[in-house]
């Protein structure tokens, strides 16, 4: 008799409890990381009804691991893509790109060439150059900002990660010794693990005590049992403006950057080191090549006042730059004083170089991009300094002073500071050197001669020919001895400098270099010339000569980067295109990572997620069982009442 009541009561309680579990499931249908619970009924022995043996948390470790891995991959791809798309917008916009500023300046130069005496035209060209300069500097600033933002985000992420790590250790601690109601804690821990996976990749393992350890890919533990280590940012010993990731152990901080290949941390570092830094170096290189080309050409001409031109853009080997192209490793025990000079911007690469010091002052200069050894040898004693290491990549390192110890390391960054340095030397438009310093003309010409003389190029204005300002030293007369031979005469002293040289009217003749004499300009003779015809070469005093302006326009079509592969315009396009290609790849990676994450989430949700239709059906099922159990009690009560009334009767 009491058995029926007992069965009824136990069934009522069990079903009520099951209803609670279902309600909890329904209530948490939208709670992230909630794993649905299932009430497990078990029959009580000896017809004592039923009880809830266990409330099982439905989980699959593999599914959870997949979610965690997919989360790392997705966060990495997502952040990387967003950063690249942002960067692409700032380099790729046609109206603000350096490429369009370059084309604008060419237009201004071509217009200027039609009237180089106009100060207004000159000013317009200078402002076009200035527009290139400001864009160089602003883009460089934007890239710098990207580096800083990445570093800042790394720092912020460290705080989040450390919170998560200690929370996981905390949950581990709470779980020990608890036998029941662990579901909530386990879900919480799974949530923490998934949050952590957003920042980095790791392996999570649960030991037989139920404690979860979090390990890096190399096995280094971040959380082990109740202990959580702290991660922090480290200054890159080789580059003070760059942050690395370190793990704080008892006394030291161990660098762990290389073990992180997933999550936001990896995205931030990859973006900073593999996208922004190369873009900066490419931008620096482009600006160096352009500055050098403009300066070299301007130096070959004469300005409005007839003086030889100087630099129009800041010198690419100015003291500020050459002294700052070497970064010293913070652990170095020696101290080297270096200057790095760019010898040919056309040969520069976008890589940095490592200068390693070995035993007995041995050195090796290695290109970082492909580990190619550029130069090796021994640094001489301080008495023989400076010592110059020439590299085939368009720069030379001069070791000026200092002591060197084995293990010292330096990073040589030849392009460093280039874009910021691309500024106008002077805003004085008259300093644009658009004429050539030399002019050639017909002196005396006999009846019937058709001889012509042209200055074809200026190659060097540092020769003795240009040693006196506004003069040619010496001015030269080319005197024809016969129709087929000529000599070169110093027009000041009327003495023969060299000759006779053979002249062929069919092919013409390049006059210089004449023997060993190279005055730094080239003159071409052509046509039929007779004995005693003369040609004069003198300093140019024409105000409107645009010969050097025309030569300057040719720079725009000249390959000046990557050993002549790219013109300045193409150089910029290549830089922007590299970023677009990377963004395009990142988009594909994102699509894949997104698909993997969706799949992993769905798989996990299929197992652990709450299905409202299912729960609704279970709800009615338990409701019915609950009502039936109540009916059992009702019956037990009425049986009891029947017996009681029988006893009374």
């Amino acid at each position, binding site marked *: 008799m009491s058995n029926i009541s007992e069965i009824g009561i136990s069934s009522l309680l069990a079903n009520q409890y099951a209803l609670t579990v279902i309600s909890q499931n329904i209530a948490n249908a939208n709670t992230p990381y909630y794993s649905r619970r299932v009430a497990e009924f078990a029959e009580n022995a000896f017809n004592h009804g039923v009880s809830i043996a266990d409330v099982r948390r439905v989980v699959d470790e593999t599914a959870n691991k997949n979610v965690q891995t997919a989360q790392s991959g997705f966060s990495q791809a997502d952040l990387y893509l967003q950063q690249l798309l942002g960067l692409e917008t700032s380099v790729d916009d046609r109206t603000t790109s350096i490429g369009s500023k370059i084309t604008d300046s060419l237009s201004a130069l*071509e217009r200027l060439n*039609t*009237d180089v005496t106009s100060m207004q035209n000159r000013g317009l060209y200078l402002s076009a150059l200035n527009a290139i300069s400001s864009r160089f500097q602003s883009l460089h600033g934007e890239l710098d900002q990207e580096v800083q933002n990445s570093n800042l985000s790394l720092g912020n992420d460290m705080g989040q990660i450390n919170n998560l790590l200690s929370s996981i250790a905390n949950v581990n601690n709470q779980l020990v010794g608890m036998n029941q109601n662990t579901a909530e804690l386990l879900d919480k821990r799974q949530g923490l693990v998934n949050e952590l996976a957003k920042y980095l990749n790791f392996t999570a393992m649960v030991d037989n005590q139920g404690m979860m350890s979090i390990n890096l890919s190399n096995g280094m533990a971040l959380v082990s049992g109740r202990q959580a280590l702290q991660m922090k940012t480290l200054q890159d010993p080789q580059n003070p403006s760059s942050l690395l990731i370190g793990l704080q152990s008892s006394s030291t901080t161990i660098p762990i950057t290389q073990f992180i290949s997933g999550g936001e941390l990896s995205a931030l570092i990859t973006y900073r080191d593999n996208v922004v830094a190369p873009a900066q170096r490419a931008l620096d290189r482009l600006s160096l090549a352009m500055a050098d080309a403009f300066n070299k050409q301007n130096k070959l001409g004469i300005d409005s006042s007839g003086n030889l031109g100087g630099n129009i853009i800041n010198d690419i080997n100015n003291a500020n730059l050459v002294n700052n192209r070497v970064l010293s490793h913070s652990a170095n025990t020696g101290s080297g004083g270096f200057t790095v000079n760019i010898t040919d911007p056309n040969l520069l690469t976008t890589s940095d170089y490592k200068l390693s010091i070995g035993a007995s002052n041995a050195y090796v200069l290695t290109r970082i991009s492909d580990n190619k050894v550029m130069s090796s040898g021994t640094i001489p004693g301080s008495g023989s300094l400076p010592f110059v290491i020439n590299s085939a990549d368009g720069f030379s390192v001069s070791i000026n002073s200092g002591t060197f110890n084995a293990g010292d390391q330096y990073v040589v960054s030849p392009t460093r500071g280039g874009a910021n340095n691309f500024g106008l030397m002077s805003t004085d438009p008259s300093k644009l050197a658009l004429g050539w310093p030399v002019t050639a003309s017909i002196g005396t010409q006999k009846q019937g001669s058709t001889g012509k003389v042209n*200055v074809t190029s200026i190659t060097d204005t540092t020769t003795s020919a240009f040693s006196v300002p506004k003069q040619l030293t010496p001015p030269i007369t080319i005197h024809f001895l016969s129709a087929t031979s000529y000599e070169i005469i110093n027009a000041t002293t009327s003495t023969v400098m060299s000759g006779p040289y053979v002249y062929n009217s069919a092919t013409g003749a390049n006059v210089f270099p004449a023997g060993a004499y190279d005055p730094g300009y080239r003159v071409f003779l052509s046509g039929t010339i007779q004995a005693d015809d003369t040609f004069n070469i003198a300093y140019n*005093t024409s105000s409107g000569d*645009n010969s050097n302006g025309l030569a300057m326009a040719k720079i725009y079509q000249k390959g000046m980067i990557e050993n002549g592969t790219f013109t300045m315009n193409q150089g910029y396009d290549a830089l922007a295109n590299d970023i677009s290609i990377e963004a395009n790849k990142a988009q594909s990676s994102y699509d894949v990572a997104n698909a993997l994450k969706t799949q992993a989430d*769905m798989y996990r949700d299929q197992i652990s997620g709450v299905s*409202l239709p299912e729960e609704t059906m279970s709800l009615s099922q338990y409701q019915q069982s609950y009502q039936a159990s109540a009916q059992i009690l009702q019956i037990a009560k009425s049986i009891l009442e029947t017996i009681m009334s029988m006893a009374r009767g």
Partner: protein
Amino acid sequence: MRIPTFGQYQQEASLISKEFDRLSSLLHQAETGKKILKSSDDPVLANQVKSKKTFIDTLQSYFENGVVAQSRSTTVNTSLQNAISISSQIQTLIKKAESGTLNDTDRAGIAKELEGHLANLVNIANTKDSNGGFIFSGSNSTSPAYVQVNDMFQYQGSMDSLMINIAPNVSAMFSDSGYNIFSNIYQGNGVFTVNAGSGNTGTASTTPGSVNTSTYVPDTYTMTFVTNSAGKLAYQIVGATSGQVVPPPPATVPADALEYVAGSDVTFQGITFNVNGGPQVGDTFQVKPSTKENVFNSLQNMITLLKKPVGNSGSFNQAITQADASFTQILNHLTTYQSESGTQAAAINAQINTNTSILTNQTVTLSNLENADITAVYSALSQQSLVLQATQAGYLKMQEVLTQILQMQF
């Protein structure tokens, strides 16, 4: 398969957002007409588009210069045309002045007219462009081409010409050296000049003469009238370096000098001219290789000659005949130069046409590269909006089914 509600909604939502992304990118295509919105959509195509655009922009910057060069060559041509017309008027006046019926006053009147023409010619040579640059000063465009110093006109411009680029690696003459146009002209018949000696007393004068280039020996020759051994008025010719040429050695002078016959040709060393009038013994003529003189000085000399009263008619005739010949040279030179500059103008026009057609072709290529096929885009657009509607309908249907389950009575 057990599909949980939460995941179900997420999946549906992400499907909708994916379909919406597609729709919005198609909408962008339809709005902008471009295939790609950012370079990373298709880096290879984007790079092609960029280099095409750079090429077109570069060519366009030359285009402007082409137009400038074209307008300059028109100005030059007009100036030359004016100079030629003035020069031919001058020649007419010279021919008039040669007429023996004129008196000193008539000639002074002609000189007055010539002075007006001279001023006009100098103005033409010193033509300025809209920027104030002198177009015939070569690269020395801030100086006037010709200025008068001590009654003589001197060229101030540069000897070289100013070029500008009208296409990559194609340059056009922008400002030629005025020297080539106005100064590079030989006097007389273009090969030699014949001048009367300053002390001539007779009335003889010569024609400008002609040359046989294959036998011509350039030298300064002096023709002197003498009395020969036969007692006749005769002439002998001696070259400064050639020595005695008429009569040729071993004949001796003055004994063997050739008898003078008025109106007959004198020929030696490739030179031929006709002598007319009555020379006196002791009169001389000098034959010299032509030197260059600019148009303005030639004209100035002529004016000076016409202003002075005629002394010796022979010397006057000689001078004016030579001036006439010089102006024939000037006219020839200017006409030749005009046709050369016409050729250059044609070359500039041709280059502009080439630039235009390259520009057109490249623009078409560019538009093929970067422009979306609008019909295809619109058709895809309507398809896509249909897909999106279907996805949304699916989402709603799912909600409906769920609601039905929840309302079911068990």
